[in-house]
């Protein structure tokens, strides 16, 4: 398979950073996923080949990291933290609210319009600003249900553009 020019450039740049090829693996998988939405079989084969690894070995690595996935997620993946600090400040309620609002099961499936998926995640490093969530890589903190509505609405609009 062919990578985009940007990804190719990224790959070439990163290879130069390390004494061994496979060291690029973890961050490069994430960059690939950012482009493709998830790590497809072809992408796995391609990366394995480039790094002199077996596809099995690449899958071993993928399945270890919680951000890497081999199935599609929504265009916007809403990741709500419910770990202890968020728990104390209503993280579970925020998750429940987002789930209801978007009509998708947590950690499963994509909303009907294909825009959203909802994930319950572990601590994202926003403990002092709990409750918090990330939509893709964007942090949203000190959440209230009303604020969540607003945020989700803004992504919905973005998706329509």
């Amino acid at each position, binding site marked *: 398979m062919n990578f985009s020019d940007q990804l190719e450039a990224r790959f070439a740049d990163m290879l130069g*950073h*390390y*004494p*061994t*090829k*496979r*060291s*690029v*693996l*973890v*961050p490069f*998988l*994430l960059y690939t996923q950012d482009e493709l939405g998830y790590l497809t079989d072809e992408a796995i084969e391609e990366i394995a080949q480039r*790094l002199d690894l077996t596809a099995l070995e690449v*899958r*071993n*690595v*993928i*399945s*270890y*990291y*919680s*951000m*890497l*996935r*081999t*199935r599609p997620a929504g265009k916007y993946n809403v990741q709500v933290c*419910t*770990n*202890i*600090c968020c*728990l*104390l*400040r209503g993280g*579970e309620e925020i*998750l429940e609210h987002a789930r209801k609002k978007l009509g998708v099961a*947590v*950690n499963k499936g994509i909303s009907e319009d294909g825009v959203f998926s909802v994930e*319950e*995640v*572990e*601590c*994202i*490093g*926003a*403990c*002092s*600003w*709990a409750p918090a969530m*990330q939509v893709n*890589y*964007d*942090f949203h*903190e*000190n959440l209230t249900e009303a604020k969540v509505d607003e945020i989700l609405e803004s992504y919905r609009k973005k998706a329509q553009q």
Partner: protein
Amino acid sequence: MAYLVSHPDEVKVISSRFGKGAADIDRYLELDGYKAVQMALQMGSEAVINEVKASNLRGRGGAGFPTGMKWSFVPKESAKPKYVLCNGDESEPGTCKDRLIFEHDPHAVIEGAMIAAIAVNAHKAYIYIRGEYRYLLEIMQKSIADVYARGFAGKNIFGSGYDLDVYWHGGAGAYEVGEESALMESLEGKRGVPRIRPPFPAVVGLWGGPTVINNAETLASVPHIIMMGGQKYADIGTPKNGGTRLFCLSGHLEKPGVYELPMGYNLKKMIYEVGGGISNGRKLKAVVPGGSSTPVLTADEIDIAMDFDSVAKAGSMLGSGGVVVIDDATCIVKFALRTMQFYRHESCGWCIPCREGTDWLNKTLTRFHAGGGLAKDIDNIRYLAENMLGRTFCPLGDAAAMPTIGFVKKFREEFEAHLEGKPCPFEKHGAISQLPVMSH
């Protein structure tokens, strides 16, 4: 983006450039940036290590190991290249300080890593940032590019004849990768499974070369130490606990936030004065003083100095500086369960006691919390946790066991109040959801 707060008791060393646009290299230079590294080049390896030793700087990643001593373990001569590795995997629940540093003062981390490299005579430094912190990785990428553009990194830095490369590296979601040897595995493109020790990273680390690994905050403190002198830095804190650290106050506080306070600052004051006291007019029930893996302190146990030794004496740990405040309306069983859920989700699965132990503690606590607890479960929970303690392959097993033992030991009556038949004494008590175990 992360929010800044302030309190009069703060002593701003690491946070001195926060909010001042120091991510911009010119601004950083205006704020005395990259002076320390030039001084370090002049001072030479041994003097730098001595200065850091004098500062009583202890690792901010959790274990509190004296940084100067760690650096001195790196062999002078090595057939394989030496490395400096900055641990920016910040994942311990309750901890969100490295994030602020990367956002507001990324060059301090770079400069600290460079000084560490000079100290051990390494020529390559890697800055590993957790995958979720994508925006920080981008800030770091730009900062490193700027550093190269100025000729501060690469060949012959600052005309000193010393070559030093600095690289960024991003993670992809795994708490265990914060463990030093797992971090190296991850950086080498592997599953984040820790390594057998000995050999220790200082001798055999990244790609088999001697490696210094330090937390981002630890490294960000180093330029300040060089600038102000080790002794002066040490004087800010308590004996053997030099300087300041970023405390992440979270949970049921009026004014949660990240505050830079001197080592040894009183915990009670931290909660009631700096943090503004318990929110919603409730009373304090418990504090987790150093991130989720540290044993809980009850409301009666908080009149202590927040330095590594004093907290240890109080039966807990200063850990990574995450102070999680729990009010009296909170169910400790649920809190314990959510903590265990986390460790179960994050266990790398390598060793039996951690993999199976976290799963069974999670199962038992789930049933317990849902009202199906049996009297013997309470002892079983403790038995299991005690048998994980000190017997797992890496300290993650301890991190799961220690808080659990603490909860059962200190809040036994709350567990007993959950026993079969009796409704949970706390109102808001929805069934806790379950994160799936990692499986694709």
